[in-house]
């Protein structure tokens, strides 16, 4: 809905910021409080990109807030640097550079490790600021005398001193911050960050260098923090040492969660609530020091019952109120879908695989030799020799525990083999990362769905298509998704192929199982692989869905090589040209479906020695 009005949020923000000085005083907000809220909001814009969008919860943002703040304040007070804006920007760059170095360490691990490491980092910065660097930072006295900005325009000099005058400067900074953050969030990088939050494993598997993107988000957050830290010094005419404390990081986290994560404006709302309640509880209710306890309880309750924070709660409420109308829309859509399914539609054109880098190569597309995987004493795959020709459709069958999925994981380089070699199109890919292999044109659809569950069908396919169109890492932070050449076509085409066009804007969590399975295949397909591995694509489908999916697999097989694992032999034998049978981690036999059906060894493997034709 918002997509049709591209600058709606920017316009509303600008109007809000212009109106604020006329409205807020009547609500009891002092200009200084409003300025503080904006500084927190700006600090939070970057943090929300890191936490809300990328899913990385850092408790160490004070390190960058303090770094940016003290660098700017030092330049303006002790170093005699006259240009406030210039100092702020240098502070921002310093914070971003620090963020890059710290990110290299902190992002070595994810989840709770990341949270713990960021806490430790923040504490180190606090101690460094107080002791070894106290000559530069003023130690516990901070740096007093930070000047306010003024701009000489030739005919007049604009001077932003304090109160509402300084507000104009800070509000402008906040507005620019919002515009930049929105650009980033709507860029291809922004889309990939959400994918990392939802499913880092799949984001890696479709060909994105997620470490690079996470580091990007970390640096962005550090840069925003650094700029906000500088503004804090300007606002207070004094750079306080407590900017570096763990409490600063904690307050930012809490404000973001209270306001609503993943909304960009959550931190601003959270800061408003926080500072308003602080004033209100302390002075109006005379609670004194207990205000923080009240805020703590409010915070815990919000996390327990209102995960989306205040903005998320309002959005839910809005949906609830307008829910009735949408229900009927959905029903209409369903009816239309039923109609469409009844009438046969034109099959979409087959999708091209990505162009071959070295067309001269004509040997087998994939050749594995001596492939072995051991888990301690357990041998999952033992000495497998396996070769697939260009354009071939190969099936792999085998009883449960034969090592089929392990074999696939080694082929796509998800797990390294214990020994052996894998050659893809004449190139040794043993030991490469799954991301690189996907970029080369080899990927797989998973046995258990690995989707980006918080995103819509279209967004899911966009993530996969972006990897194919942009490569594994690219910093096009200010490009729109629409600006990526060929993206819409690729996504629409894949949607049509996996027959999900009508469900394009449905969140994945609302899809039926069969639809999720088709999307799973679509994710692999949208990366335009030349060799596509499918791990049990038919598992759990109804007979009708199986027929549909076999049709789909046939249509995508044109112009590409596919290897399919499945237990549904009727469908598989109908689909593939040759079949490899795995048993106890070894290749039992390879042959045409006819040969396999009548092979005594295969029958023994499946039926435990009962001789007779498999009821095929």
């Amino acid at each position, binding site marked *: 809905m918002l997509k049709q009005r591209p600058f709606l949020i920017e316009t509303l923000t600008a109007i809000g910021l212009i109106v604020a000085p006329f409205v807020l005083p009547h609500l009891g907000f002092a200009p200084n409080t409003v300025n503080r809220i904006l500084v927190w909001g700006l600090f939070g814009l970057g943090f929300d990109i890191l936490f809300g969008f990328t899913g990385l919860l850092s408790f160490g943002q004070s390190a960058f807030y303090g770094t940016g703040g003290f660098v700017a304040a030092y330049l303006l007070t002790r170093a005699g640097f006259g240009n406030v804006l210039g100092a702020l920007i240098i502070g921002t760059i310093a914070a971003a550079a620090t963020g890059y170095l710290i990110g290299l360490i902190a992002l070595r691990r994810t989840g709770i490790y990341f949270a713990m490491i960021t806490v430790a980092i923040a504490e180190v910065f606090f*101690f460094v600021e107080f002791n070894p660097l106290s000559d530069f930072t003023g130690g516990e006295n901070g740096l007093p005398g930070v000047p306010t900005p003024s701009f000489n325009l030739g005919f007049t000099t604009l001077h932003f001193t304090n109160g509402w005058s300084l507000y104009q400067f800070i509000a402008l900074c906040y507005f620019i911050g919002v515009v930049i953050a929105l650009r980033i969030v709507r860029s291809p990088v922004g889309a990939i960050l959400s994918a990392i939050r939802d499913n880092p494993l799949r984001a890696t598997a479709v060909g994105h260098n997620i470490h690079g993107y996470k580091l990007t988000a970390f640096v962005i957050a550090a840069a925003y923090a650094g700029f906000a830290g500088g503004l804090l010094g300007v606002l207070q005419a004094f750079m306080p040492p407590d900017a570096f404390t763990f409490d600063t990081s904690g307050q930012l986290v809490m404000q973001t969660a209270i306001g609503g994560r993943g909304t960009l404006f959550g931190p601003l709302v959270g800061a408003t609530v926080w500072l308003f309640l602080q004033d209100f509880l302390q002075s109006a209710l005379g609670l004194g020091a207990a205000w923080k306890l009240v805020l*703590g309880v409010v915070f815990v309750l919000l996390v327990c019952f209102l995960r989306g924070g205040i903005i998320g709660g309002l959005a839910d409420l809005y949906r609830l109120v307008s829910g009735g109308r949408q229900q009927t829309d959905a029903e209409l859509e369903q009816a239309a879908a039923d109609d469409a399914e009844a009438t046969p539609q034109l099959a979409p054109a087959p999708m091209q695989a990505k162009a071959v880098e070295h067309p001269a190569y004509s040997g087998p597309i994939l050749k594995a030799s001596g492939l072995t995987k051991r888990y301690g004493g357990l041998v999952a795959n033992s000495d497998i020799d396996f070769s697939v020709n260009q354009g071939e459709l190969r099936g792999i069958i085998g009883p449960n525990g034969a090592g089929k999925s392990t074999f696939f994981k080694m082929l796509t380089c998800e797990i390294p083999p214990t020994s052996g070699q894998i050659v893809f199109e004449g190139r040794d890919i043993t030991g490469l990362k799954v991301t690189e292999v996907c970029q080369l044109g080899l990927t797989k659809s998973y046995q258990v769905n690995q989707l980006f569950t918080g995103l819509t069908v279209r967004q899911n396919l966009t993530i996969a298509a972006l990897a194919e169109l942009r490569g594994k890492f690219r910093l096009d932070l200010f490009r729109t998704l629409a600006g990526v050449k060929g993206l819409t076509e690729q996504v629409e085409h894949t949607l049509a192929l996996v027959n999900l066009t009508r469900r394009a804007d449905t969140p994945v969590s609302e899809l039926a199982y069969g639809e999720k399975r088709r999307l799973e295949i679509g994710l692999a397909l949208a990366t335009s692989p030349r060799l596509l591995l499918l791990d049990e694509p038919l598992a759990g489908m109804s007979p009708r869905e199986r027929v549909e999916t076999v049709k789909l697999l046939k249509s995508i097989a044109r112009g590409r090589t596919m290897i399919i694992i499945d237990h549904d032999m009727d469908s598989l034998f109908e689909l593939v040209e040759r079949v490899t049978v795995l048993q106890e981690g070894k290749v039992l036999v390879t042959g045409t479906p006819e040969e396999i059906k009548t092979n005594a060894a295969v029958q023994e493997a499946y039926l435990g020695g009962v001789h007779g034709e498999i009821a095929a």
Partner: protein
Amino acid sequence: MISWPNLVSQLFNGLALGALLALISSGLTIIYGTLGVLNLAHGAMFMIGGYAGFVTYQYTESFILAVIAGSLFVMLLGVVMERVIIRHFYHRPHEDQLLVTFGLGICFVELVRLLFSSQSQIVPPPALFQGITNLGFMFYPTYRLAVVGIVAVALGALFIILYRTRLGMIVRAGIEDSVMVDSLGINVYRVFMIVFGIGAMAAGFAGIVNAPVVSLTPGIGDDILVQTFVVVVIGGVGSFPGAILGGLIAGEIISVTSMFNPGYAYVMLFAAMTLVLVVRPHGLLGVQGRE
């Protein structure tokens, strides 16, 4: 300036701090290992143990009773916290678990601040361990020596619970694979509650045992929490032996660095953590896979 007695005395300080950190980290790490929840309120548990013991001491003048009451109170608090709040977060993302325990930690600290004010409170060491011991080559506060012994006993008890009892076996199995334990017909959720209680008690016990060494303030748990994180990262998440090794390493680093310049204690601690992360990302005694 650096004399041998000075160095040895700092090594002893490091041992006392290290033992304490080992105990607190063990609590944190078995909770995380079993439940998959990183308890950011763990530092607050440490602090509350100290205050609960302080209150008991005010009424009874008995240090032993203070230790028992402090530990039991924190265990009870842990059990209630798990029952009422934490269990609703097992199936929510890690971030939510971090947020809610972080919030609870703040509530605990602020509540204590409200009840006892920010002023520091003092619990004297028990009569038996008062004064200074002559070690032959140097004098050392008796109670600090006793702390090492007391904490070693507590760690021993924790070891026996973890490695010699049925509950311990379930806990260790749960650290490996809690889904499997659940499907074996063991009520994992009851085990979770007990583990949370024991883990919290370890922090509470450390809190009251440490109280005579420092003075109690509501914020005393914050620094400890950060140090505990470093211990766990160095030792390996979910590893009890890792927590002990990491604790001793961290304790010595802090003490020895403080001898030269206290300002660099955290820098050195962080440098050690970074080194471990680079060389052995899963910690010195950690197992790959659990994240």
